[in-house]
């Protein structure tokens, strides 16, 4: 009797352990077990060889000394691509905008629902699916007079915050690629009737 009870409890423990292992593997696969750096890394806040390359791809110079005109054209392009203006200071040449968009990727939603079903079956407790639901995309555009060339430099940066269906931030990242900057400046050139030059 005692022996049987012990065997049953060992079996139960083994079953429980195997379920935990599966859950752990699944969690790792979905990156929920990721780690975060809590201290400032030595490479933070340091200029790297990529800094210059990045600046070059984010920046163009337009052949006009009229910075105000460039800023107005920037607003037109930002409105074209759906950004709303959050902040601006013409004297500094700064414009900050943002927009909110859906972040739903059907594959991720399906995976999170399935994961929730599997986890519910394994643990016997209801597990809610968690997936990226919305994102806030942010842009900052800065203009600088380039006096020796009688031009105006324009630099653009993008970033985004992704929120889950539970309202938590699931991702914060810098956005932008050479193609994105290229397209942004192509729109700005069109709006200004001026060609964009790299430095």
């Amino acid at each position, binding site marked *: 009797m005692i022996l049987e009870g012990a065997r049953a409890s060992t079996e139960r423990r083994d079953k429980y352990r195997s379920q935990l292992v599966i859950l752990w593997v699944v969690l790792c696969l979905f990156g929920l077990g990721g780690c975060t750096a809590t201290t400032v890394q030595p490479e933070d806040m340091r200029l790297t060889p990529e800094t210059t390359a990045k600046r070059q791809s984010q920046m163009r110079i337009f052949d006009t000394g009229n910075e105000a005109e460039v800023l107005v054209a920037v607003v037109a392009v930002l409105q*074209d691509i759906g950004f709303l203006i959050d902040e601006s200071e*013409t004297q500094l040449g700064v414009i900050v905008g943002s927009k909110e968009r859906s972040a739903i990727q059907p594959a991720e939603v399906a995976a999170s629902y399935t994961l929730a079903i599997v986890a519910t079956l394994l643990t016997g407790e209801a597990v809610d699916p968690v997936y990226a639901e919305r*994102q806030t995309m942010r842009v900052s555009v800065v203009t600088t007079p380039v006096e020796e060339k009688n031009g105006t430099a324009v630099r653009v940066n993008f970033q985004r915050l992704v929120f889950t269906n539970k309202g938590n931030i699931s991702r914060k990242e810098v956005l932008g690629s050479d193609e994105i900057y290229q397209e942004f400046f192509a729109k700005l050139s069109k709006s200004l009737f001026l060609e964009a030059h790299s430095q």
Partner: protein
Amino acid sequence: MRAIGMSVRLVLIIGAAVVSTGCISTEARLLDADTSQVQLRSMQVRAFDTTDRERMLRTVVATLQDLGFVLDAGEVGLGTVSGTRYIDTSQMRITVSVWPRGESQLLVRASCELRRKPVEDPATYQRFFTALSKAVFLDAHEIE
């Protein structure tokens, strides 16, 4: 364990179905490449027969307040005003920009965002420009 096997099969089926339908990339969303920007611009822009930019901006501010918006930002130098209005559980955000067109006109562009999307309903913009037109005592001309 049979339930797990079934779930795994379910994942594979749903996954395959979903991946094959495709989705909008972050890059496309960043530049709103999935919307018709020309069409959107034509419903968002009106011309007014005045050159008084500051008066227009002040009227835009007053109109936004009349329509229940609280202002977030505004600058005469840039000619923009932004505001937010709460509707039940969601919020509508708006940016209005004003700039000169030729010697005798101002262009006013309003862009709105509601529930994670740009507002693409011409009637919404029409109502805004009707309200603005009344407040500024000028007609709002559509431009091509």
